[in-house]
């Protein structure tokens, strides 16, 4: 199996925040902490694009590199996890992360800033899989239940994909090749009634770039 990966398709994301809600509900994430957020570029301008962002489970994770107490570890599936019993809540990881994934609850053992909390790819933590202790610290361990992350499984437009890197990239590649671009994009004609828009199943002319 390749590494577990997330990918968000900006052409499909409709900024519904269903992924954010699914994550918060699944793991009972505390108030003030959002393991996943939807970021919109050019908000309000025609052609705005949204993507859902959380921990990207980097192959060479900067959070892991800067952590002074070495609380991070990587599973065999490439999921970057951390041990909250080791974390000292210093916040170095939040400065190092380019995606703003590490979050800190405002109440906790360390006064104002508690122990770091981040997306676990629904893979829990070092506690026994499926145990109450694991749930309270990290949320549900869906991978150990044979399920994929709740955010991606919940995504109504399937903009957010999660799972084995090979499978996810294959799905996205197939989409990009088949949906065309601009008004040809799959579903555009149905949604907006544009005459120039192709209907589902219409392929781009030969030689056209997508």
């Amino acid at each position, binding site marked *: 199996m390749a590494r577990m990966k997330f990918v968000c398709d900006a052409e499909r994301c409709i900024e519904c925040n269903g992924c954010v809600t699914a994550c918060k509900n699944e793991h009972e994430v505390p108030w003030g902490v959002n393991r996943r957020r939807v970021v919109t570029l050019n908000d309000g301008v025609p052609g705005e694009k949204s993507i859902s962002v959380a921990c990207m489970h980097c192959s060479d994770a900067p959070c892991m590199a800067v952590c002074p107490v070495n609380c991070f*570890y990587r599973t065999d*599936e490439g999921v970057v996890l951390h041990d909250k019993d080791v974390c000292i809540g210093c916040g170095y990881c939040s400065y190092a992360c380019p995606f703003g994934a590490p979050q800190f609850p405002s109440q906790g053992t360390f006064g104002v800033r508690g122990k770091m909390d981040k997306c676990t790819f629904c893979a829990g933590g070092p506690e026994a899989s499926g145990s109450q202790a694991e749930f309270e610290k990290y949320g549900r361990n869906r991978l150990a*239940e*044979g399920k994929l992350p709740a955010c991606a499984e919940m995504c109504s437009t399937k903009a957010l994909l999660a799972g084995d890197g090979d499978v996810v990239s294959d799905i996205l590649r*197939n989409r990009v090749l088949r949906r065309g671009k601009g008004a040809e994009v799959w579903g555009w004609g149905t949604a907006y009634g544009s005459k120039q828009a192709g209907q589902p199943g219409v392929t781009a002319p030969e030689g056209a770039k997508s």
Partner: protein
Amino acid sequence: MKSIMFAAALVAGLAACGEKPQTNETSKNDSPAFNGTGKAYANQDWKQGDKASWESHLKARGQYGQNDYTRMN
């Protein structure tokens, strides 16, 4: 004699210089996901503890649940 001791100290000092291994490391405490939870919430389509069945099940679930082109066309 002095120079030999100096060289030995130098070598010993250099022995401390090195790089941390950058291999994929799993926490010793964490059990692999394919071992399952042993609880009823788990999906029934794979055998808990069997890595191959867990991997093939997740791949199938990823394809079926996320690739709408194969589901509709």
